[in-house]
């Protein structure tokens, strides 16, 4: 039987060779315009940014932070996502080959076209470990303090992370990611289309509960959104806000290129990208309307620098304080990761998968199965229950945090590379023309100037961040700048440990593209 199959394959191949025909690989297409809309709703998502932006605002100038956050979204992320989409639509390729084609066969741009998809995809197993914990906490939320104890922080960092549960639940979620990815892009598009609206609806329920039952809700709003107009001129606030936008959207070879390359005839770029961005801003804003207020309502200081500490330490403390109601809210909160977080995992899986399929000619099933096997191994590494005494957590989590923090740096640099390619080879005017050809809502021609504003903003922010963390900005000690380069903890910054861990993260992101660009 095996020999017959082998023979048939050989015969098929020979027939093609004899006929001198190169069989074109048929590119998948969304079955309807809703496919690209689903992708754009799913793409900027995730739990980290959704939960922490409001708390970053409390630490960095309240409303001033929010204003810069929205401005960065509109002036950097939105135009770059439109450009990403136009690149995909006009080349019908995933990022690396699209960038290569646009730049007139320049390998350097193909190289950078690989960096972000690989980085995004490596983010997936780190997030699957965290979402695995969300799932576990959801399943045990009904027990409340009997599960996460009366000291949830001590339990999470010291006890829970020393178990194999994050790995186990992470692998369960990975199986579902494989299940909706391996067959067809349309299979998952049909599912994720409804997830963002569902997440927004769940947030509305939590806001309503907060307003009705928490008499201190407006105090939380005042903490989060009040501001002094003069703070708008403080560069560190702008930089902090922009970093979260880059991280959230992974722009600079973002997944929009891949999804626009699946766009059917008549697909609408501008409408879908705008809806995706606005829906994302709305959900982040909605989280700001209930999370800090709920903590203030039970007298827990809303001071959290990272999402993980907030979600698995601060919020369980709050649920404990709320008693029986807290258990219901906890169940609602810990399940929200499915509509609000999982779609981004599927998006990044699709992005890197499409890059590999384009370059290596692999089938979808083979690509996604292989990626899931590698992701499973990485989940085991990132969930390693070995205690890291320096940072007071598991060693796997130290790797996760470092990966996240360094990732935002690559993203900033990749946006600059993408914009340089846009100015030199593609031209902003063409972006507007092509987007308008396929969209009901027409962008004004003056939209093209926003790309120059984006470039100046990103260049300034990256430069300021490096200067601040190197102690070159007067009045800002490097360790207290709290940026993603040096937040004073020692393992993100330019310290020996920081650099060593950074290299572990750099190896796949920097070296794998070198392997791919050499293949024709």
């Amino acid at each position, binding site marked *: 039987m095996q020999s017959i199959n082998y023979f048939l394959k050989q015969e098929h191949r020979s027939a093609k060779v004899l006929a001198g025909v190169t069989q074109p690989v048929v590119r998948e297409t969304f079955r*309807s*315009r*809703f496919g690209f*809309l689903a992708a754009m709703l799913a793409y900027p998502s995730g739990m980290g940014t959704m939960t922490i932006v409001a708390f970053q605002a*409390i*630490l960095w*100038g*309240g*409303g001033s932070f*929010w*204003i810069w956050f*929205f401005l960065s979204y509109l002036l950097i992320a939105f135009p770059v996502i439109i450009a990403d989409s136009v690149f995909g639509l006009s080349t019908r390729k995933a990022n690396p080959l699209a960038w290569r084609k646009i730049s007139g066969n320049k390998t350097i741009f193909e190289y950078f076209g690989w960096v972000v998809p690989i980085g995004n995809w490596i983010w997936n197993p780190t997030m699957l470990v965290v979402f695995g914990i969300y799932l576990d906490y959801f399943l045990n939320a009904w027990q409340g303090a009997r599960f996460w104890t009366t000291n949830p922080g001590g339990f999470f960092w010291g006890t829970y992370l020393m178990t194999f549960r994050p790995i186990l639940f992470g692998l369960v979620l990975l199986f579902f990611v494989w299940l909706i990815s391996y067959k067809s892009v349309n299979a998952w598009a049909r599912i994720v289309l409804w997830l963002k609206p569902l997440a927004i609806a769940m947030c509305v329920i939590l806001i309503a509960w907060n307003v009705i039952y928490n008499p201190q809700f*407006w*105090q939380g*709003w*005042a*903490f*989060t*959104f*009040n*501001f*002094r*107009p003069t*703070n708008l001129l403080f560069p560190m606030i702008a930089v902090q806000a922009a970093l979260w936008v880059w991280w959230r959207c992974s722009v600079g070879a973002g997944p929009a290129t891949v999804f626009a390359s699946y766009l059917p005839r008549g697909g*609408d770029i501008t*409408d*879908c990208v*705008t*809806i995706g961005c*606005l*829906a994302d*801003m*709305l959900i982040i*804003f909605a989280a700001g*309307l209930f999370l800090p207020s709920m903590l*203030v309502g039970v*007298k827990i*200081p*809303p*001071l959290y620098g990272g999402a993980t500490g907030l979600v698995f330490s601060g919020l369980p403390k709050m649920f404990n304080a709320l008693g029986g109601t807290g258990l219901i809210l906890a169940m609602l909160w810990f399940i929200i990761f499915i509509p609000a977080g999982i779609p981004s995992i599927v998006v990044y899986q699709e992005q890197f998968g499409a890059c590999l399929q384009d370059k290596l000619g692999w089938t979808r099933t083979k690509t996604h199965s292989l990626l899931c096997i590698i992701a499973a191994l990485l989940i085991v590494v990132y969930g390693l229950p070995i205690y890291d005494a320096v940072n007071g957590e598991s060693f796997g989590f130290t790797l996760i945090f470092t990966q996240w923090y360094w990732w935002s740096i690559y993203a900033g640099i990749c946006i600059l590379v993408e914009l340089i390619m846009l100015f030199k080879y593609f031209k902003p005017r063409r972006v507007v023309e092509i987007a308008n050809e396929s969209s*009901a*809502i027409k962008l004004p021609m003056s939209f093209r100037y926003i790309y120059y504003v984006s470039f100046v903003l990103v260049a300034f922010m990256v430069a300021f961040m490096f200067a601040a963390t190197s102690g070159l900005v007067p009045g800002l000690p490097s360790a207290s700048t709290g940026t993603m380069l040096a937040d004073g903890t020692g393992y993100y910054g330019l310290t020996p440990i920081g650099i060593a861990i950074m290299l572990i993260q750099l190896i796949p992101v920097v070296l794998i593209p070198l392997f791919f660009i050499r293949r024709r």
Partner: protein
Amino acid sequence: MTRFSTVTCLLLISTLLFLTIASTGAAETVMIEIQDGSIASMTPPELLQNRDYQITVKVTKQGNPVQAAKVELSSSGGIVTIVGDSSATTGSDGVALLKTKFDGGGTVTLRLDGNKVDQLFIYYESIPPLAAGLVGVVLVLLVASLGYLVYTGPLRWYLEEHARK
């Protein structure tokens, strides 16, 4: 005319004097007791922005007053700034006095000899207009734009596809 000016001046000066005395007298007293590095009691339990406070911090260790301990307040969240004394040193009775006011709401960290004791909430008296305005404007803009885009995009596509069928 001169007499009228003199009377007006006197009235103004007396009003200013009254307001100064009245505001000095209106300083609210806050008592914080720190026992063995953590807050044992605080009255009143809540602090509000834009009020004059005379904060009395009593520091004891194993029941004995601690002398020459540095008590500090520093802003740690929100947009609160400390107007007036932000640090004081305890006397032989273990008491330190801080005359202060909090300009804005948020959280303030209380430290003793550089070590964090606790976070104090500085509450707003009412929702500040800038915060309310930002929440309102952002919500209206986001919801209205999304509604319009859903109407011009997905809703129309759905209706078109439905009509075709």
